């Protein structure tokens, strides 16, 4: 029997304009929130492993670290098909950096001792791309990021990951932490019944004390990343418009443009 833990996060809705609060250096997370879209791909990957029988999965558990409102993200996760969820919430967690969050998640994962941890490759707000790797480091498990294909053979996973140029094919042995890209699958829609039933699935709410997590390693107390300032990204140069009057000529122009920049 196999247990999969899926790491999930509550993030501001894509339609909300995101801003950094310059007094704290933290993202202003007020406004409409939702389950991180990348995490829905991790949930879908877990469900596909379960439903296809590729792994003999008996349980998919969604785990989050976040404020009380993050319960909604867990409801969404179980409406998509996770069996139950765990919510670590504590005022002392406020201001945790990636390493602190990774530590707290790793401690939660140890309590569950799963065979596989899946995560979205990035959050739609912090965009660090690094939490999965931090979790793997704390667990001492192999960690793979930006995975867009997963094949299972016994305890071995063959993963295709998006690299800067092309793809890497990597084999890992379970247990492992895999963060997935959005190209890995098409997440399903939650059915009306699943939405209505989400609140009935078990949800365990834990404080740092409950989970025996060292408060000095998380939150403001444990953070090593310090925000010093922000600035606008440099403005992009205006693009070049090529009017398509004669297609053969247009193609030539485009090829010449690309050639100039050694892109082809």
């Amino acid at each position, binding site marked *: 029997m196999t247990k999969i833990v899926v790491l999930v996060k509550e993030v501001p809705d894509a339609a909300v304009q995101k801003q950094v609060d310059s007094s704290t250096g933290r993202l202003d997370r007020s406004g409409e929130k939702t389950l991180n879209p990348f995490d829905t791909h991790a949930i879908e990957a877990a469900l596909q492993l379960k439903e296809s029988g590729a792994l003999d999965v008996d349980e998919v558990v969604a785990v989050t670290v976040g404020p009380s409102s993050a319960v909604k993200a867990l409801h969404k996760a179980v409406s998509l098909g996770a069996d139950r969820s765990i919510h670590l919430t504590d005022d002392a967690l406020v201001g945790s950096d990636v390493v602190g969050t990774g530590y707290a998640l790793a401690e939660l994962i140890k309590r569950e001792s799963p065979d596989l941890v899946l995560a979205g490759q990035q959050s739609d707000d912090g965009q660090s791309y690094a939490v999965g790797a931090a979790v793997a480091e704390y667990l001492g498990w192999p960690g793979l990021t930006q995975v867009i294909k997963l094949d299972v053979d016994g305890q071995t996973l063959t993963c295709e990951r998006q690299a800067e140029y092309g793809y890497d094919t990597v084999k890992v042995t379970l247990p492992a932490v895999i963060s997935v890209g959005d190209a890995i699958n098409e997440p399903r*829609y939650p*059915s009306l019944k699943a939405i209505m039933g989400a*609140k009935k699935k078990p949800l365990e709410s834990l404080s740092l004390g409950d989970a025996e997590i060292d408060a000095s390693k998380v939150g403001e107390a444990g953070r090593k990343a310090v925000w010093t300032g922000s600035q606008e990204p440099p403005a992009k140069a205006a693009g070049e418009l090529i009017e398509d009057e004669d297609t053969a000529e247009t193609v030539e122009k485009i090829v010449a443009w690309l050639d100039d920049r050694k892109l082809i």
Partner: protein
Amino acid sequence: MSTVSGTAPFHLDDDQREIAAMARQFADDRIAPGAVEWDEEKHLPVDVLREAAELGLGAIYCDEEFGGSGMTRLDSALIFEALGTGCPTIAAYTSIHNMATWMIDTFGDDEQRAKWIPGLASMETLGAYCLTEAGAGSDAAGLATTARLDGDHYVLNGAKQFISGAGVAGVYVIMARTGDKGPKGITAFVVEDGTEGLSFGKQEHKMGWRAQPTASVNLDDCRVPVANRLGEEGGGFRIAMAGLDGGRLNIAACSMGGAQSALEKTIQYVGEREQFGQPIGRFQSIQFSIADMATELEMARTFLWRAASALDAKDPDKTRLCAMAKRTVTDITIEVADKALQLHGGYGYLSEYGLEKIVRDLRAHQIIEGTNEVMRVIVARDIMGRV
């Protein structure tokens, strides 16, 4: 998201917002991209309907016992608005299917429900509702289709007009006369496709609503088992009337979706379209138009929710409120859609932008489920009595 959370008493709870968000996502991904093509090709995308049904959208407000989703009418209004943003016609057909399914679920006995609801809920079987005739529309009490008892069958004769889903549906809920002239002589029947004597007229050519088939349903000595009678003999009028309140809300909600989508397209368009050296959205006349469109839609939506809540609460005023909502929402939404077309200029008139299709589709909504004039008759009778 088109549906805001609101504040009490105009409040949606978390589940309702998730439901609306799910339906909207489905409409964005699965319906909107095909809408213009389905309209042009007069194609009902049954595969997409069945996908929607897997999510519970085939029997939204039916009891859960035989496969329904057990949602409220307010939930349904949120869902049909969301589906309507993808295509008002597909949303409207889904709503008609839901109404026919609800009639069987609500007025059928357990044997009938067990027989038909699972297939309808999954949309493996599509439903159709047959009330209107050449000489009887909103004046349902005057309908002329007959059903004569003959042993363990009824023999149905007559013709039903403007039937959505005619020819593709597997189950037809048909109102026919078993007794005297007047409302008490009407009985409801479930007639399955393939029954001898059941046939369909040619597909009608229509201004809009082209993605769903519309034809006459002809009954020519059509023998229907007594076991297919829905409710008691003479109970059909009550069933027909019970279906109408919700049917009107559904159509209004589908209109909301069409107009909401037209507004969203327009906001994007006026931000991109440049004239006189700037996006036309910077002109105050355009801004005021957008502000008015959004305000009118919010008014319509608020009233739709009020009427839906009244139907959920079995408020004694529900029929009047549903008629008011149908009239006002379908009038406002076509105006907003027409304004959206205008703001798109020449592009609004081209098929590929989808605006003219929304206008054509929403035009039907001022007519079906009782014309908006009939809605005024209902409202006037309710508040003035039969003077």
